[in-house]
């Protein structure tokens, strides 16, 4: 995961940083502008792994019966799957978040905790979403297809690479899609951390959708297991 992040950041982001001059559409440094995106893309990939695991347990490993025999309440089992997915995603992006915090000059600051909170909340939503897909996907092709489409939407139809003003100017019909994208909320929250004193306000926008997707994942997991 860190290797993926490094390729994204130290090759792609640096190159685009050199291609886009400072000051373009009010962006002081394009490299710093897209840097948090590299980390959130890594978080997204790691979070989607939870759904893949659930799918494999269901269709390949046939582990459902074993999991149901565990001495834990079923709701707790489902919740812990989500919590585990979030923890894994935060661990996978741990060094990446440190690198971005260093680049943003807030490594020795309480904002580091806010950065991890953003990654965790974003991952929570994606873990929930991926578990929902895994519950309803009957074949690995369907799961992989849906995952790819969601990753495509999160990456290219968000403000990860460009400001919403650029989208407004060139493709105004995409603005509602870009503005309602969870990646847009997460990456914008991360960018706002650069400005100290913003508090938890930018992060709060992520709470409701992430909880919604997590509940969706929880419900789907319980439903598919016929719990």
């Amino acid at each position, binding site marked *: 995961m860190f*290797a*993926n992040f490094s*390729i*994204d950041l*130290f*090759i*792609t982001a*640096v*190159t*685009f940083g*050199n*291609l*886009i*001059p400072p000051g*373009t*559409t009010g962006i002081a440094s*394009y490299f710093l502008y897209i840097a948090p995106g590299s980390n959130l893309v890594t978080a997204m990939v790691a979070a989607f792994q939870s759904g893949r695991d659930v799918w494999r347990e269901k269709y390949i490993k046939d582990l459902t019966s074993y999991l149901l025999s565990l001495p834990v309440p079923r709701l707790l089992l489902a919740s812990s799957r989500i919590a585990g997915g979030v923890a894994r995603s935060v661990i996978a992006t741990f060094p990446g978040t440190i690198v971005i915090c260093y680049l943003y000059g807030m490594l020795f600051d309480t904002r580091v905790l806010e950065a991890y909170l953003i990654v965790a909340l974003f991952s929570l939503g994606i873990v929930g979403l991926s578990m929902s897909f895994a519950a309803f996907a009957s074949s690995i*092709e*369907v799961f*992989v*297809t849906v995952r*790819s*489409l969601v990753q*495509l939407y999160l990456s*290219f*139809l968000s403000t990860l*690479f*460009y400001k919403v003003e*650029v*989208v407004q*100017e*060139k*493709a105004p019909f*995409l603005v509602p899609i870009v503005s309602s994208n969870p990646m847009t909320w997460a990456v914008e929250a991360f960018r706002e951390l650069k400005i100290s004193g913003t508090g938890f306000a930018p992060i709060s926008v992520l709470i409701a959708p992430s909880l919604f997707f997590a509940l969706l994942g929880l419900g789907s997991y319980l439903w598919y297991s016929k719990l």
Partner: protein
Amino acid sequence: MSSSATLANASNSQALARPPNGGVFQIALRDIQTLFRTPWIIITRSLAFIIQLFVFATLISTLVHISSDPTFNFFQYYAIGSVVGTMASISFVIGYDIFEEAEEGVLDYLLTLPVSRRQFIIGRALGGAVRAMIYIIPMFVIVAVLENFTSPLNLIAAVLDLFLLSFGVTGLSITVAVSVRSANRFDVVLALLELAVSRASTALYPAIAMPFYVAILAPFSPVSLAAGSAREALTGGAINIASLAGLVAFVVIFLGLGAAFYFRKLEGGVYA
């Protein structure tokens, strides 16, 4: 049973055991058919290409500016490069197929087919390359129409570059698939290789903008060679002999390595 009937049966078995020319094509055809059995994957990848081209490249090209080359057309650069990058990415898929077949025991069945080992290996590589070509052609057509590339000779030269890249990457992918034993390690190695080969190349962005540690390596990437050669053929009308030679060398090396590793695996276990 008469001796003549026995002889006739024996000669039939021999004919079945060694099909004269059809073995390679039968094996290749099988790999090509798997492409059409997974239409959702084709649709997703095509959609990914369209979004990358019509959303990402369109929007980002309004921001890109190179002071040393103010006329630089990033959209055109990215359009050709994304076809080449996608081609490399699709060609890696054969490795996943081969690894899965070995895991699921399908390989044992394939080895019972009346096809020689050499035909089998060449057929796999050819099938992987041809299916990647079939997959990429609609995208190539979109780019050709968008950028008004109409010269048949130039288009053929660019397609040749793509085919060589595809053949070489297929060999590389087979080499990795048969030399890594753990499923997780295989997934990681192939995904990283795919990412590194396409990102550390001049397919999607020019070397002039790359950080020095990538810029010194990028020109040697097979994806760079194919992208550079295809770009020159399509926009300048020239054939880049050096890039073509590099691509041919890449094909020979990795197809040879892939064949050697695969042959070794087929004949006696992974490391026997």
